[in-house]
């Protein structure tokens, strides 16, 4: 394997990893953009998403690495699992917003943020108690098709992850940019007070942001499971922290910024692991974050959040 092969392979690894972080980072950014709230429960909504997908796939009879599907059944099962996962995690997001955060919305200070940390631990422990603390062998129905270029391998699941992420991110960009509710979202992000005066139902917009963010986290969780064929109650923290870093790096509140940040973190993780040492990955990621914040305090593409002063 030459250096070029290695670099190309890491590019594939990094983009896959980056897509996952980007999906997760979008959830942080959507909520922050509108409420200026860092939603730490997002970490474990992602983790719950991977467990929902795990059980849905097992429900379809896909167990471990032994059930291979092809053609229409494969597409059907994957789409169904993705839809159920996104609906369930989206529902969790709405629940968190409606029943836990809305009563606190008028409270100043960090109370809401602390609450999201609490919710994160509740989700975490529900999974530990309900599903067990052992690592799970995530069902993998994908046929073992791979394209090889020299020694570089591009697998079916990587292509699948790229497709799912592209479709979801494209859909979100379209939604935020061109639909009525998306415009309402942007308006609320700019100035909630004025938006309300223009007749926008701010509560609905906020709920939508939580739904979308959590649904994307759920999709991220399912992708995580398909990519690593593994899930456990632990996966939320390290992926969540990196995705949050990605959101800040790209400019929190900024939708394209979150995608860019996620990609960057994924690529850095892949390349530093191959060309420096895995032990240094976190040092590099977080040093870069510090540097970016020192020189561009609003992140790479600029921060977008309501001006509430």
């Amino acid at each position, binding site marked *: 394997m030459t250096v070029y092969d290695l670099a190309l392979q890491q590019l594939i*690894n990094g983009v896959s*990893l980056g897509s996952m972080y980007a999906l997760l980072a979008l959830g942080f950014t959507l909520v922050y953009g509108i409420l200026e709230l860092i939603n730490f429960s997002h970490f474990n909504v992602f983790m719950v998403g991977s467990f929902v997908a795990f059980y849905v796939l097992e429900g379809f009879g896909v167990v*471990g690495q032994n059930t291979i599907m092809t053609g229409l059944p494969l597409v059907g099962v994957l789409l169904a699992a993705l839809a159920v996962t996104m609906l369930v995690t989206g529902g969790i997001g709405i629940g968190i917003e409606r029943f836990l955060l809305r009563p606190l919305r008028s409270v100043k200070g960090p109370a809401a943020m602390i609450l999201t940390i609490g919710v994160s631990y509740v989700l975490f422990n529900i999974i530990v108690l309900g599903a067990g603390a052992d690592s799970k062998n995530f069902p993998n129905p994908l046929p073992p098709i791979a394209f090889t270029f020299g020694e570089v391998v591009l697998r079916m699941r990587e292509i699948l992850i790229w497709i799912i992420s592209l479709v979801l991110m494209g859909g979100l960009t379209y939604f935020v940019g061109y639909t009525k509710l998306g415009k309402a979202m942007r308006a609320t992000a700019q100035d909630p007070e004025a938006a309300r005066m223009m007749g926008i139902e701010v509560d609905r917009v906020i709920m939508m942001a939580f739904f979308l963010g959590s649904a994307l986290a759920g999709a991220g969780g399912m992708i995580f499971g398909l990519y690593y064929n593994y899930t456990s109650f*632990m996966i939320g923290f390290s992926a969540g922290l990196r995705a949050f870093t990605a959101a800040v790096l790209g400019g929190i509140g900024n939708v394209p910024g979150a995608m860019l940040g996620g990609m960057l973190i994924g690529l850095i993780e892949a390349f530093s692991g191959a060309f420096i040492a895995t032990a240094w990955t976190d040092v590099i990621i977080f040093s870069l974050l510090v540097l970016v914040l020192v020189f561009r305090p609003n992140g790479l593409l600029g921060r977008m959040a309501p001006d509430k002063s």
Partner: protein
Amino acid sequence: MLLQMACPAASLPGTDNDNKGEQHMITRRSTFKAAAGVAAAAALGLPQHALAADKILKVGNDNSFTGADAQAAVRIANAVHMAFDEANADNAVPGYKWVVENFDDATATAGQYDPAQGAINARKMVSDPSIVAALGPSMSGVGKAMSPILSMGDLAIITMASTNPDITDPKFARQYRPKGKAIYFRTVTTDAYQGPNMANYMIEVLKAKSIYILDDSGAYGVGMADAFEAQAKKKGCNIMGRDRLDPKAADYTAVLTKIKALNPDALYYGGVGQAGTKLAKQAYDIIPKMIKAGGDGMVSADVLQGAGFPAVQGWYATQASPHVAGSSDPKVVAFTKKYFDTYKMYPDDYSITAYDAALAIIASAKKVNAEGKPVTRSAIRDMLEKIEVPSLQGLVSFDANGDIKDHTVSVFQIEKDDKFPLNDPGKQYAYRGVAPQS
């Protein structure tokens, strides 16, 4: 799953941490009563055991009951409880009754063992006057945190699985046994043998000429990989690199792709299941044909289940003890049968070393009692240094540092056996022989 795992522990005597004060009171009162009884008996010339039949000897059993290593901990705890239940049934130490209290050194936040929790457990054990000896932990990181506290409390502990050599090394005596006397005993040998012997095996038997080494940044994993690396270098093997995995990270494809590019003959991993599971899974995709090996951290139900077949197939792993489980020795056969009948799972080698550790404590207490002395912490500790215990793995005895005198390291390879549960470490690891000692 956790509920399932918690059940054997919860149903066992002495797991309840509440009502501590009450327990103490009862213990104190019964001690007082017993003492009065002994005095009265002595005065009347009656045989003592008739009156002092329910004096309690408590044993603290520390292990990682939450997270990645929970299943291994349950297998160990089962053996411990079995040994003490048998001792109670046989009245092994006349006049005393054993009670085992489980302590969990893992936290949900860490997702695996947490040395800080181990230190808390050690303090709890030391401050409970009814605890006369301790068993565990499985994790060297925890052992390092517990040992100094136990040393100050003069409470001997026997580990059935933790293998980091520093804890018992006289070089570090001031750190790990500030009181000087051996406090951390083992019924397994250490990574000072486990790592190097496996290096010998990989170079001499598997003919590996170049090796890449990974560890999981824990005390055990780093120590193991260091010892392995030193011996492999000494034997002239080409060490192509060394890297460290973050057990909480999910993605190891970067470093594995790098290893693929370097193309060594073998990969050696020092560490436990949390990183090991993900490593096995991703290594199967990226370097399927390379020889892959780990230490006893790769012998676990969690690795078998989380990584699953075919990813784990072919991995080598070691145990820092002679391979006894599954032997045709009638004692072992009887043990295995009883264990399976009681707990519906097969014991592995560390269930056996755990059982042996419990036997050593029981034998020490028995001998102290037979010499007519009161069974106290320090009496048991002193006796452990001298005693030779017939056990499942043969005659167990400890050197002046607490290490077991036998240094056998056994090599296993994961080989799918459809006849048994695919997550049963007692059945899916095929024995490959004893690793050559240097």
